């Protein structure tokens, strides 16, 4: 029963994919979209069933399908593990997935390749489910690479534009750098524990007495590199902003809500490994905090609506990693969920705006949309408040917990995180003000077409806004359902319920004040003073550095892309030719000797006989005089 259901869960989107690939074009756009959406909705339903069952029984469901890969000291099964963590992830992956599918039906309606779009989207859901429910690291790896592939396909969905294709390629390759790390981690774990299966691994680690701490740390670090790639952490984050080249719903689904959280999922999944490697945990925390801050600073000055959201995502992911690094896995998970709600909502809202403006993404050409796009505005506002950490919206709870944990461990990290939060509030409201307030700054042509989006678009927005508002309820500071629910996963005793004393409340207060300060600055700048960000050419000073994202892309380009291409040219033009001429030079030399040797064969009998006699003398001398 469970097996069949799990297969249904997994295969529904896959069948949707197949259907759209083979028949999508013939059945028409709406039908293709509907079928895609229903497939995911079906998965959602199954997920709910599993959630209920697991929540009730507290028992993980193990499903083994078949032997997959045979390794010398172990074999890898193709199997599923449905436990608290995976079901939780399933719920929001399929849930938000279904909503975004629905949204896309309308959003993508004008695109001629809509069936392809839904095919890819379904495929993505399929791989994401695989990633989440895989019973071992290698099945996770299937999903891991699979979602990367779908991300590639969807970023480059408009494949006639080579820039988009570049972005897609970049995403795929940077992900692959991380994937290599993940693979290395898998290798080390495999050789250390002779298993890749989560359950077995957990018993092996908890049961073992003398563990090779060095290699475990290396493995943890390698796995973390993998997570960095997928979850866009420094230094592998630059692909995510570029990934905004894809259709906006894709950004919402893949690059905000689900795929980028895979890294957090994986680390949470293997928390018992990371717990054994405190050094790596510290690195994770620092990387997370720095990422949060750096991304937030960049987001401060971006003018592309999706870029702001993208850097915001990177920043929020950084916060989650901070939490992971501090061992507060459940807090990270909590933020993943709330973030999924409000960030999806924000992206979809921005999509709604872009849709209304026919593809315009520059905030400097927006403004005043509040009046025409009320629903979009309201949902956007709610989500912005949530991300800014204003109570009682969900973001407040999750972010606050991260800050609390950070404060407990390290004041500097807390300060960085708080600064990032403050900036978050600022740039989100800068975005909000520039987009929805004041007068419209676009062309008259655009203005005449401004409209609220259709129901298929607004409905998901509303649902997500509601979730963004209420999401915090699952883990209230004093009574966390989530912590209890997840506790079987963790080997360490879950972070003790905070005793809410003065410090905690003070911190909470500071956080809220910080958020409000951010909002205030934005208000002052963009409402009071009616500033509009300068044109590209006029940006100067540090703003320019921020606007150009610290030139990281350029540096990477110079360090890696240019150098490797240069190396390639060098190899092709010099090393290859040299090797060839070295090998075949021998042949040339031989040939030349042959050519010169022809002169010896002069045709003269005298010379021939001379050689004869000399040869004879040499032989005879050698044999009878030398010896």
């Amino acid at each position, binding site marked *: 029963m469970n097996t069949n259901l799990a297969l249904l869960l997994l295969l529904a989107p896959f069948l949707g994919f197949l259907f759209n*690939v083979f028949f999508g074009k013939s059945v028409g756009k709406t039908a293709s979209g509907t079928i895609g959406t229903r497939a995911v909705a079906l998965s959602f339903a199954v997920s709910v069933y599993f959630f209920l069952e697991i929540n009730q029984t507290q028992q993980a469901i193990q499903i083994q399908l*078949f*032997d*997959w*890969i*045979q*390794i*010398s000291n172990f074999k890898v099964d*193709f199997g599923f593990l449905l436990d608290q963590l995976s079901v939780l992830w399933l719920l929001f992956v399929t849930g938000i997935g279904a909503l975004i599918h629905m949204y896309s039906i309308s959003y993508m309606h004008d695109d001629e390749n809509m069936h*392809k779009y839904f095919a890819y989207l379904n495929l993505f859901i399929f791989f994401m489910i695989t990633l989440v429910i895989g019973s071992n690291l*290698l099945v996770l*790896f*299937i999903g*891991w*690479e*699979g979602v990367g*592939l779908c991300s*590639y396909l969807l970023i*480059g969905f408009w*494949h*006639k534009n*080579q820039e988009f*294709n*570049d972005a897609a*390629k970049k995403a*795929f*390759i940077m992900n*692959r*750098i991380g*994937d*290599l790390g993940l*693979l*290395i981690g898998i*290798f*080390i774990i*495999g*050789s250390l524990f002779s298993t890749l299966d989560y359950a077995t691994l957990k018993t092996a680690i908890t049961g073992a007495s003398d563990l090779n701490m060095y290699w475990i740390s*290396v493995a943890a670090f390698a796995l973390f590199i993998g997570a960095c790639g997928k979850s866009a952490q420094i230094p592998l984050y630059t692909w995510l902003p570029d990934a905004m080249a894809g259709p906006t719903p894709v950004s919402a689904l893949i690059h905000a809500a689900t795929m980028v959280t895979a890294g957090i999922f994986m680390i949470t999944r293997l928390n018992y490994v990371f717990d054994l490697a405190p050094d790596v945990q510290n690195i994770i925390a620092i990387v997370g905090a720095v990422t949060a801050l750096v991304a937030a600073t960049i987001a401060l000055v971006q003018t592309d609506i999706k870029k702001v959201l993208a850097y915001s995502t990177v920043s929020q992911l950084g916060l989650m990693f901070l939490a992971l690094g501090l061992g507060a896995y459940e807090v990270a998970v909590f933020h993943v969920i709330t973030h999924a709600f409000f960030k999806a909502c924000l992206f979809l809202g921005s999509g709604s705006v872009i849709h209304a403006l026919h593809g315009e993404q520059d905030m400097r050409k927006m403004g005043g949309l509040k009046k025409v796009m009320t629903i979009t505005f309201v949902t956007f506002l709610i989500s912005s408040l949530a991300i800014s950490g204003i109570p009682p919206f969900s973001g407040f709870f999750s972010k606050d917990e991260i800050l609390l944990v950070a404060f407990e461990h390290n004041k500097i990290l807390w300060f960085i995180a708080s600064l990032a939060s403050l900036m978050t509030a600022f740039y989100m409201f800068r975005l909000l003000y520039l987009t929805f307030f004041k007068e419209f700054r676009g062309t008259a042509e655009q203005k005449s077409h401004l409209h609220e989006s259709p129901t298929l678009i607004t409905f998901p927005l509303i649902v997500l806004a509601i979730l963004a508002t209420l999401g915090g309820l699952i883990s209230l500071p004093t009574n966390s359902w989530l912590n209890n629910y997840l506790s079987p996963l963790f080997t360490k005793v879950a972070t003790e319920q905070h005793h809410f004393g003065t410090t905690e409340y003070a911190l909470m207060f500071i956080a809220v004040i910080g958020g409000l300060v951010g909002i205030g600055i934005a208000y002052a700048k963009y409402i009071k003073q009616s500033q509009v960000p300068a044109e590209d050419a006029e940006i100067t000073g540090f703003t320019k550095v921020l606007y150009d994202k610290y030139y990281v892309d350029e540096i990477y380009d110079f360090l890696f892309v240019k150098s*490797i*291409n240069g*190396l*390639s*040219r060098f*190899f*092709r033009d010099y*090393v*290859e030719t040299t*090797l*060839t001429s070295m*090998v*075949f030079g021998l*042949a040339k030399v031989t040939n030349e000797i042959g050519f010169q040797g022809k002169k010896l064969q002069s045709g003269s009998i005298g010379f021939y006989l001379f050689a004869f006699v000399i040869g004879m003398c040499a032989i005879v001398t050698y044999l009878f005089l030398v010896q």
Partner: protein
Amino acid sequence: MNVSILLIILFVGAFATYLAGDKLASKVALFFSLSSLGCAIVLLNNFNAGENISFISQWINQPNISFALQADGLSIAMILLTLALAPIIIFSSFGNVYKNAKAFYSLILFMVFAMAGTFLASDGLLYYIFWELALIPIYFIALIWGNGDAEERKKAMVKFFIYTLAGSLFMLVGFVYLYQQAGSFLLEDLYNLNLSVTEQLWIFLAFFLAYAIKIPLIPFHTWQANVYQKAPTVGTMLLSGIMLKMGLYSIIRWQLPLAPLAAEEYKYIFISLGIAGVIYGSIVALRQKDLKKLLAYSSLAHVGLIAAGTYSLTIDGLRGAVLQMIAHGFVVVGLFFISEIIFRRYETRTIADMGGIRSQSPKFASMFLLLVLASVSLPTTFNFVGEFTVLYGLSQINIWFALLGGTTIILGAYYMLKMYQQVMLGETNTKAFVDVTFQEGLALVIILAVLFFFGMYPKPITDLITPSLENILTHINRIN
């Protein structure tokens, strides 16, 4: 029934094809290749049922040479690869018209015959004979039916022939030397030799030269790109799909067990060489202008990893190598076929002249993409299974090997996607591109089906090859 029947079918097929005349040649060749594949499957069944399918008969008394064909799991796997690819390759050529087709297809079958013989032979000399024999047909195929300037092609082919022959002659000397010690060329007799480390080193090097040139490993690869580019695509497929596997197979079957001490002693060097090939091949592939050359260098990178796997002397390395060989065989044949399909429509292999094909031919684009993905070993494809196992094997030797070898998944993705982008994506090209025909599609679908099926369920192959690999490994470890 024993394995000699396969060789007989192919040999007879080669003649029958020649006699069938130009019009029927391709069909007759396909028929014979398919029937040999059928026989091979029957033999596989018999083998799994425990039947003895070997064939041994004394051939030359003095020196003692036998006509010995033995099939263990490894050989059968390679035979199946050969015989499965052969019909695909022949079938894929149906879209082209060749002058003097009867000779062309006859040579193809003859080459398949020789390659099959190489995989089956268990007598050193017989093996060597098949090994050399496989060289002649491809030489003529590339020479007569190749493309590009005739003079340059000629040069490239002569270099190729002499170069590969040069390598293998040293192997022959190695074999003769071994024969002096063992008094027989038979595999098991050679396995039982106890040679000193120095002797083994020389044997090892003599064999290495042959294999490194054939496979090819850097820095012995310089013939490869040119020949791949200039050979007709069918020839390129045969070369890259099957022939280079001969070298890799031979490492496992002959080189390692015959010189285990040397292999053990110097394995770091040879693994490094393989891995250097991975990185070097990938980097060179980045800036290639010719599609077939790019694929050639990608092949260089892939086989580098496979070779590194074999030299790791671990069961994982060996098993992964064999799996990856099979997977790579299919992928590379598919990719070269893709290049041929483009060539049929655009008359060019220069990447810069392509672009925007995806918009015009969705089916082709999808299949191409899937092949690219298989080539970069995305999980669920067979290549992943192989590459994962190889890399795992390498990581057991030294994690840095796995790390450096693993760069293939990054660099591979880089050049393959770059190539895909330049060839397929972008604005629609002014030149019209007709989507794949049924025949082309069928060939590609078969390849893809194999890749994805075994990507998810490699167990049949793993079970087939593992006992024989373990057996070889015990021979390798017999002295330690």
